[in-house]
């Protein structure tokens, strides 16, 4: 059983974030971190592998050279192998270009199951999974809140061969249950699990695990098919920031409850 997990590096939550007025892109020179939504995808991949008793989890990341740290975190958390697609030509890739690159890597790997996190914490997009599934012509299930795998009766764990996954997921109307045969693409919600923390052993062992770096040329893609050149959308301008009311911030020093009551009284809400 081979499980691939597509992960992304995003600016660290505590880093000051800005859009570069020159390139109109998110400034990615600030400290980065493994996208938290993707840690849930990785955790689910590890659980699937553990339940089947056999297999490999491969973390795939597209991003600049410095994003290798995030990929190393994925290895520390338990991924067996990592693939980093790093090429200056990739900068500015939109959905069409990014899905083209990831689909190409996944075609090479030919996994049984592909996981995505729900969304990028930087772009708030929840779209990459469906675009990649379409390029691979594989079934898609998004927003998975729980997942069960069904094994071939002739190949149960500990060398389990998974034939199907059954997923419960939330929509605007309640819960759906969707089933798909393998190979398929599953995007998980952040409610599906609690990701483990990396162990010391995991961190120490991460460096020794196989890591491969690929360029667009390695994937037989031309530089015109990726990055800004291969993208069909553009950022035209930075607009005015949205109007915001006055906002107050307090740090709790033991009196926060009283401060809230005073505020509510002032606003005539009590």
């Amino acid at each position, binding site marked *: 059983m081979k499980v691939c997990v597509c992960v992304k590096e995003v600016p660290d939550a505590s880093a000051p974030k800005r859009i570069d007025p020159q390139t109109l892109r998110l400034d990615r020179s600030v400290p980065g971190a493994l996208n938290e939504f993707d840690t849930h995808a990785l955790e689910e991949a590890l659980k699937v592998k553990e339940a089947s008793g056999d297999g490999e989890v491969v973390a795939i990341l597209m991003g600049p050279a410095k994003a290798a740290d995030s990929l190393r975190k994925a290895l520390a958390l338990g991924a067996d192998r990592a693939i980093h697609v790093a090429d200056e030509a990739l900068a500015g890739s939109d959905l*069409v270009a990014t899905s083209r690159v990831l689909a190409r890597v996944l075609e090479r790997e030919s996994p049984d199951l592909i996981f995505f996190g729900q969304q990028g914490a930087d772009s*708030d997009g929840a779209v990459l999974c469906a675009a990649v599934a379409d390029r691979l012509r594989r079934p898609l299930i*998004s927003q998975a809140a729980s997942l069960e795998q069904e094994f071939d009766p002739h190949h149960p764990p500990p060398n389990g061969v998974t034939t199907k996954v059954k997923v419960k997921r939330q929509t605007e109307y309640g819960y*759906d249950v969707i089933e*798909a045969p393998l190979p398929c693409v599953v995007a998980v919600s952040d409610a599906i699990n609690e990701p483990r923390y990396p162990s010391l052993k995991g961190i120490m062992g991460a460096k020794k695990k196989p890591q491969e770096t690929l360029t667009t040329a390695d994937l037989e893609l031309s530089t015109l098919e990726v990055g800004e050149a291969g993208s*069909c959308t*553009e950022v035209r301008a930075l607009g005015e920031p*949205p109007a915001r009311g006055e906002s107050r911030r307090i740090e709790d020093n033991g009196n926060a409850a009283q401060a809230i009551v005073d505020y509510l009284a002032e606003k005539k809400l009590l």
Partner: protein
Amino acid sequence: MATLVYIEDHEGELQKDSLGVLGKAAQLGDDVAAILCGAGVKGLAGELGRYGAKRVLVADDPALDAPLPQPRVDVLAGLLADRRFDTVLFGASVLTADVAAGLAARLDAGLNWDLVDLDVQEGQLVGKRPALQDSVIVEVGWKSEPRLALIRSGTFEPVESGGEAEVEELQVEVEDWSAQATMLERARAESEGPNIEEADVVVAGGRGLGKPENFSLVEDLAKALGGAVAATRAVVDAGWYPYSAQVGQTGKTVAPRLYIACGISGAIQHKVGMQGSGTIVAINKDPNAPIFEYSDLGVVGDVHEIVPKLADLVRQRKGS
């Protein structure tokens, strides 16, 4: 501009966000068609003229019965191969995000998402997208056609302009692989549970509460304030609280006079369900939580300490 608007329905009801987007499309240009996909949806087509469609294309087929995205991508891709539409718009939902993204890949067409406005500037369609936790708005465009866009839920209200639409049925052909995912159980609207949409005060709990038992803190505060209890998607999905109490894009939209968010980080999916609230108070231990970007009063601190004290103080004050 020839625009196609994807119309979502659920159990025979047209979805409000789709109708809002249809109205916006009609405001931007004359040539607006709507597409309805499903099994037994033909009867809904007539209504769409009133909301701005000049033409309604209906893909009515058993293969489209379950609200799954991939067969719908096949229908749209087939239609766009035959006829020219320069723009395809979707009101964002769990279903349409997957349909739009699949279509973008199939056609190598640009998709902009999470748009809160559409505008034509010098003959070019421009979308407005909030970024960095809604602290800036970026103007986005498309370099090729068709231009695909997902509009943030709740952005445009439906407008009844009162026209007649011409209805046309489409042939439906679905790829084998598109039909491989199957729906075993389908979501049904739940009507039971407290009515958080009408409450004057809503106290909401999120994952920061730590464990399901701690929802009692939120319930106690709501009781002291005479309000209703709400929950985020994360805790509902995790089984801590019932779906009927969920606020956000896939839950209910509330606009109480006072909204108190306890241990909620405040992702965009949550924000769209409560941003219309009069006063927003957020308590969270993470000073970087996005919710502080749109709170009137942000309190950085431990919900487990603050919420019980607050409930006591509210009771004392009301008792006096």
